[in-house]
């Protein structure tokens, strides 16, 4: 609704949002706060220095701490970003208020923070956010939770952009403890995600897992936080070699993420593709061809191709070609683990196509580069046989590998197991769908009568009563 208003009404928008926040505090409804935040997000691109200054001056009581702290941040920007919109100068009204709701104060902090981050003055944003955190630590109001969660997020974000994430780890842990004690569930969730992000940024998977396993998590209050949590969980599980759990979390995160969060979805899809490769299944081509993600997922697409064919040489080439991408995505070590899968797939293809093949040929086909390829091939084949990857026996004297006949699959347990997994999945989906059912919002109002109808009905009843009474009289 606010998206199409002209520039000078940004100030009015801000005023409206402030009013929403006040209403939310008075009626203690979180929904209004969330709505206020959404409005701010939609107008943040249009914020300009003078607007923010005038808003600050009109909202915060003159001479308050907050005003004196925040104005310097914004006034500097005002000098740099002087715009031609002079009508805004007419709105320089000083506030008459003496005191102000803490929520509005925190809201102003948040507004300045967003403004600074959008203008890319990261150091100032860092200083402003530290000030905001100090102020927050003095307050303890549940109505602040929504705003506080946002401030924590931008606090961590501004430090991340200036590469000093390690400094705030202690503060984040302290804030998390406080949030837990206050039963501030949204804050708890946000801070846990921020802490996990902090640890994973420095590859401290061990510590991240320790934190995550020891924290209690209540039901999620925010959809975005849930998606983030699932993504971080998926990453931790992947590194710890628990690929099935990782796959579930990452696929869920990719599905639940909002469509506009394309960067996040790309990352989730990258990791999900690798985990599926590590599990031995090949992701379909369509996952890589989704709109907007094609270019970013190109390295992974070529990697999947190499694994599918089972060609070690091609795999090595692809890994080298895109090694810088893999390093930035932090998936490099996982790619190295994939070598084993490539060999396994190649071996499986060979065993299916040949009934008997000599080990030297196996080594040549797999492009095994080493001093003793035949011995290597022999050991690899024997291990694959033991792990159940291929069905064959090796004849050492003659130096060949002989595949066993594959029997009739339908006479074994396989169909039963496949059915069972599908049935379990369908039942789960059914339960979750039922849980997610909601009544249509105004359904109950249709049932109620309006005043007129009620009067009509009462009139009719009266007439009916009179009729019956008259009939009785008549009878007598």
């Amino acid at each position, binding site marked *: 609704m606010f998206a199409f208003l002209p520039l000078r009404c940004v100030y009015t928008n801000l005023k409206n949002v402030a009013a929403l926040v006040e209403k939310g505090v008075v009626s203690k409804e979180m929904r209004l706060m969330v709505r206020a935040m959404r409005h701010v997000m939609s107008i943040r691109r249009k914020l300009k220095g003078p607007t923010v200054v005038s808003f600050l001056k009109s909202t915060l009581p003159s001479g308050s701490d907050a005003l004196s702290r925040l104005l310097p941040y914004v006034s500097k920007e005002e000098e740099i970003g002087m715009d031609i919109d002079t009508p805004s100068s007419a709105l320089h009204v000083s506030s008459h208020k003496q005191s102000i709701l803490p929520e509005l104060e925190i809201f102003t902090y948040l507004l300045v923070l967003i403004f600074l981050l959008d203008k890319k003055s990261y150091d100032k944003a860092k200083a402003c956010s530290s000030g905001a955190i100090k102020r927050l630590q003095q307050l303890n109001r549940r109505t602040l939770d929504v705003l506080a969660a946002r401030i924590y997020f931008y606090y961590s974000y501004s430090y991340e952009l200036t590469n000093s994430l390690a400094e705030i780890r202690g503060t984040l842990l302290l804030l998390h403890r406080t949030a837990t004690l206050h039963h501030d569930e949204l804050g708890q969730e946000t801070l846990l995600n921020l802490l996990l992000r902090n640890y994973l940024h420095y*590859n*401290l*998977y*061990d510590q991240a897992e320790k934190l995550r396993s020891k924290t209690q998590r209540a039901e999620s209050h925010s959809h975005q936080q849930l998606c983030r949590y699932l993504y971080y969980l998926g990453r931790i599980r992947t*590194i*710890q*070699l*628990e690929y099935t759990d990782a796959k579930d979390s990452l696929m869920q995160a990719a599905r639940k993420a909002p469509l506009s969060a394309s960067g996040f979805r790309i990352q989730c899809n990258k990791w999900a593709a690798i985990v599926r490769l590590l599990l031995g299944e090949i992701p379909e081509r369509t996952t890589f061809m989704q709109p907007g993600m094609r270019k970013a997922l190109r390295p992974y697409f070529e990697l999947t191709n190499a694994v599918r064919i089972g060609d070690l040489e091609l795999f090595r080439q692809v890994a080298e070609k895109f090694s810088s991408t893999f*390093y930035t995505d*932090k998936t*490099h*070590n996982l790619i*190295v*683990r994939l*070598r*084993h899968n490539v*060999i396994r797939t190649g071996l499986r293809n060979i065993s299916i196509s040949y009934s008997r093949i000599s080990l030297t040929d196996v080594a040549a086909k797999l492009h095994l580069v*080493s*001093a*003793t390829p035949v*011995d*290597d091939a*022999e*050991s*690899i*084949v*024997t*291990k*694959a*046989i*033991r792990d159940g990857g291929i069905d*064959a*026996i*090796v*004849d*050492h*004297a003659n130096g060949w590998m002989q595949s066993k006949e594959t*029997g009739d699959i339908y*006479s*074994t*347990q396989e169909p*039963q197991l496949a059915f*069972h997994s599908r*049935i*379990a999945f369908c*039942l789960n989906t059914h*339960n979750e769908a*039922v*849980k997610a059912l909601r009544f249509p919002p105004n359904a109950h109002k249709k049932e109620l009568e309006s005043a007129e109808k009620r009067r009509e009905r009462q009139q009719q009843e009266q007439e009916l009563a009179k009729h019956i009474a008259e009939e009785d009289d008549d009878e007598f």
Partner: protein
Amino acid sequence: MEAKFADAEKLFDRLKSAFVAQDYETSITLLSQLKVKLTEFSGLPPLYRQTPTQVQELVLARSILEYAVILSVKTEDQESFERHFLQLKPYYTDTRQLISRSSEEYPILGLNLLRLLVQNRIAEFHTELELLPPEALDDVCLKHAIELEQSFMEGAYNRVLNARQAFPHETYLYFMDLLAKTVRDEIAGCSEKAFDFLTVADAKKILMFSSDQELLKYAAESALVPDTKELLIQCQRSRILRCFLPDEHPDWEIQKGILYFQKVKELAPCKEIPSLQMINQTLGYARELERIV
């Protein structure tokens, strides 16, 4: 402060000389004394207080802990290795800005990776691997450990056993021996599934034994019944051996110089229905369908 530091340094010199002389008992006692001394310095983790001698304290403490780690390898004490290594880790990670990198850092990291591999803690192996910066992967010791893990995962066990000859540091010997034993068990397990039979000569080569005796001993290893063992020793002369190996290597028979793995016991396709599993599954379906969510 300076006096305490000088004391500690003297004690450390004594430790070094005892270590070189391979006198491990004195080394251990000296080490405990040194550790007590280290607690008096406040420049070390977890306090990291800025004292004038902080840099020297850190360097000294790190060298002491490095010696402790190598000592635990020589005394073959894996628990103390783990403890000392965990104490040493903050010196490698958190003190990067304060002191220069130690020359022993990569060998010790490589040792730790090898230890995790031997103890089959692959998840922790990979977690540790993530912590290494990219340039560390070019170092000889670390590369050695990483390639070992790869070969182990792929199943190229012969490469693992060959790598035993090419170790980069003499402290690696202990772990390589342990690894060789694990690998041998793996190879035996794989071979019995993959081969029908092997000549004794081939079996010797694959399992990397240097003599027939070792092979026979290995094949008979899990024999529980004592008099069977005597029977084995008696029968060795006649070169016909029957080994009863309940769990690990069932039915390895050696006849006329050929090692037979599991006699071809074609398990008839299981006619039995896994009734318990099916009952559980069906009950599960019924429960889910009737559930009120």
